[in-house]
């Protein structure tokens, strides 16, 4: 039974609730591919985006429309002029009168949880500052489930593991599936100790490494994230680090046959375009899976 009124943070999810979303997504995939549906006919979703986003906003919109629902869009331009005039809580109280579900992206951490207190309809957190982005985690899990397997998966999380909070919530969720996790990052961007110890408490096997080369042969999933230039005061240092975590054909010489490579996109140069042609590349498939997963969340929240 799915009893959530809102989708705010992965912290609120039990494993069985995650499974429910993933199973829902599987059933809805055919509609994401274009089959007609009127599952959410008569329902209205409002996109309330106080920060620019294309992928997340469009995939929500696609999910809603393909299930026969309608979408109201408040873009970042409009939203920012609103936010000068009134509080988010007032905006949410007003907009929730016009829709059945509200999708919120906001620069302040905790914005979605606050919005849920003022909204008369369910709120989905589509990213709050450096905070949570639970629908991204769910679609990552779904991609792993569909293209590889979740239980006991051997996965490397690569890149900025210190500030990348979506990596943290993905790691938490994976721990619930007894994943073997390789945390691969430069020394300066290692996963914080408290998170690592939480992961171990949850039963995950956690192995830290600074070298992608050392671990790549033992992986089912290679999850690559961006290392941001701003994290490095020295541009030369940044260049060296970024290069050493770049996924190229060379790296993939002795990997497992079924290895999948994921990336939340957009990529800059973390993955060489040459890799796109290999059967390992699943990042565009991952972008597609955003739609059935968001469909599943919408139907779970709006279904009667």
């Amino acid at each position, binding site marked *: 039974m799915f009893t959530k009124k809102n989708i705010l*943070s992965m*912290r609120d999810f039990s494993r069985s609730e995650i499974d429910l979303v993933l199973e829902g997504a599987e059933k809805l995939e055919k509609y994401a591919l274009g089959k007609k549906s009127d599952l959410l006919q008569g329902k209205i979703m409002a996109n309330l985006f106080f920060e620019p986003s294309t992928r997340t906003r469009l995939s929500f919109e696609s999910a809603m429309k393909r299930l026969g629902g309608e979408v109201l869009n408040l873009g970042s331009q409009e939203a920012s002029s609103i936010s000068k005039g009134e*509080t*988010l*809580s007032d905006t949410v109280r007003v907009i929730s009168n016009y829709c059945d579900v509200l999708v919120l992206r*906001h*620069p*302040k*951490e*905790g*914005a979605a*949880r*606050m919005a849920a*207190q003022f909204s008369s309809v369910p709120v989905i957190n589509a990213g*709050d*500052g*450096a*905070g*949570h982005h639970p629908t991204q985690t769910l679609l990552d899990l779904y991609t792993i489930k569909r293209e590889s397997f979740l239980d006991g998966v051997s996965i490397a999380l690569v890149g900025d593991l210190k500030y990348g909070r979506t990596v943290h919530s993905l790691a938490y969720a994976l721990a619930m599936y007894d994943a073997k996790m390789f945390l691969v990052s430069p020394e300066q961007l290692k996963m914080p100790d*408290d998170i690592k110890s939480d992961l171990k408490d949850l039963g995950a096997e956690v192995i830290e490494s600074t070298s992608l080369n050392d671990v790549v042969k033992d992986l089912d999933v290679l999850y690559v994230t961006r290392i941001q230039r701003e994290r490095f005061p020295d541009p030369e240092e940044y260049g060296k680090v970024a290069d050493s975590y770049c996924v190229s054909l060379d790296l993939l010489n002795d990997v497992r046959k079924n290895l999948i490579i994921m990336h939340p996109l957009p990529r800059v140069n973390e993955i060489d375009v040459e890799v796109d042609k290999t059967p390992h590349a699943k990042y565009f498939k991952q972008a597609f899976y955003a739609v059935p997963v968001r469909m599943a969340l919408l139907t779970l929240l709006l279904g009667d």
Partner: protein
Amino acid sequence: MERELRIKSIHNGTVIDHIRAGQALNVLKILRITGASKAVISVAMNVPSKNITSKDIVKIEDRELASDEVDKIALIAPNATINIIRGYEVIEKHKVQLPDEIEGIIKCANPNCISNTKEPVSPKFVLHEVDPLQFRCFYCDRILVGDFIDYVKT
């Protein structure tokens, strides 16, 4: 000798005893008891004590503080005891208990937290760990550790 109190006996009211030395004024701050309130208040600081090296004591006349009112001082005075005085006698005594949730007393250390904006919500925290004491922001999940008096809203 027991009768020879450092502060004169009160007829009715509340004695907050065993406050960590130096924290008496912060206790009053958390309880929002200021000079502006009419109550007669006595404060004794750095009083020698049997159990702890020294302690602070606060006595509030003619006011019986309910436990949900005072429990929040456990943030900075975890060993404090609350004594309710009637007719010069202690008629009720209990230790402060760390609340599972704290609302409106401390503010979030994360400058980018929604509770630190003009939004009409008061900061709220959930007990995360008892030793060492940690509270988690209900909104942004930031964990607060250390000296909680630094986080008390002014």
